[in-house]
């Protein structure tokens, strides 16, 4: 027996298989490689877009970098890690972001107003004081400028935070507390770099 015999014997193959290979029947199993790649690419793009959408709009997600310079999420809600001074109204344990921050530098009296969500998200982590401790120093003994931040919330509440001399921190009528110099300096530089929204 030879290959020729086998070749000839193929003549006895069922007509069903002959017709199948002729293309008389539509066969979905032989996939178009190009279509496969396009479908896979489309799926990846949808996945990335969905992820980006969720990451951007999911409330309560704090994207803290090593130096905690940014808070993402909706303007009305944010999750603050370690905020224990009640520096902002809290809902369900989460810190509520203000809708407007007025930053005033005294005695020079440079005023900036921030209503942009992203800018507010950048400022707030630096305005939140972790593990606040009442200072043993007398702020009046130090000369320097003060940055006064007025926070306005969606429910109409307001709060005032004063950072004095990049060393001292006071909320509303509360006591003066120590603030890490680096945090205060970053806050000052950030406010200086951001453009006013009004």
């Amino acid at each position: 027996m030879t290959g020729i015999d086998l070749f000839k014997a193929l003549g006895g193959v069922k007509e069903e298989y002959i017709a199948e290979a002729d293309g008389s029947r539509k066969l979905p199993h032989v996939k178009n490689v190009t279509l496969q790649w396009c479908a896979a690419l489309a799926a990846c793009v949808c996945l990335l877009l969905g992820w980006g959408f969720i990451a951007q709009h999911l409330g309560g997600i704090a994207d803290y970098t090593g130096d905690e310079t940014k808070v993402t999420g909706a303007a009305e809600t944010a999750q603050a890690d370690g905020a224990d001074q009640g520096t902002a109204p809290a809902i369900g344990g989460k810190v509520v972001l203000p809708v407007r921050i007025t930053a005033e530098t005294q005695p020079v009296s440079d005023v900036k107003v921030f209503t942009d969500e992203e800018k507010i998200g950048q400022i707030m982590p630096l305005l939140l004081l972790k593990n606040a401790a009442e200072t043993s120093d007398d702020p009046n003994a130090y000369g320097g400028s003060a940055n006064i931040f007025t926070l306005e919330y969606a429910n109409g509440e307001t709060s005032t935070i004063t950072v004095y001399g990049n060393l001292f921190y006071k909320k509303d009528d509360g006591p003066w507390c120590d603030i890490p110099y680096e945090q205060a300096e970053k806050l000052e530089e950030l406010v200086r770099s951001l453009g006013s929204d009004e």
Partner: protein
Amino acid sequence: MKEDHEIIELYWARSESAVHETDAKYGAKLHTLSGRILPEAEDAEECVNDTYLGAWNAMPPQRPLALFAFLARICRNIACDKLDKLRAKKRSAEVSALTEELSACIADPTAAREAESREIAEALNSFLSTLPVDARLFFMRRYWYMDSVKAIAEKYGCGESRVKTSLHRTREKLRNYLQKADIWL
């Protein structure tokens, strides 16, 4: 152009237009098929004409479900037989004489050959039923329709390497299958 069932009805009605309609619809494909087996155009033409005669004699009583598959099988078998005869003519006179002498040892050489061919065909049909659709398509297009690897790849929108790999694996499987079925090549 008439539908397959309409052409089959013409055969059943013994209408002479049956062959004309068949040629109009499938003549080109049948010529391509026979031309791939028989090198000479005249032989290929003769093969196609013999196919129409075969179809005329087969219908009735047959009423094939897929007319082209039916015709293609007739055409291919006729072409293979013609090829056998052409090759036999090319052998030296001495060899031809020898094979003729040996064939006398077989009581009914035609029947024996047909039985063998049937056995292999049955094995092939069983084997083909075990294959995934892709592999079966590639195998049939290559070894039944004698398409090139490139043509197969273009037809099904896949790469040539995929077709080659599939054919290689299918041949390996066929060899093992035929060995298990005690059909030795």
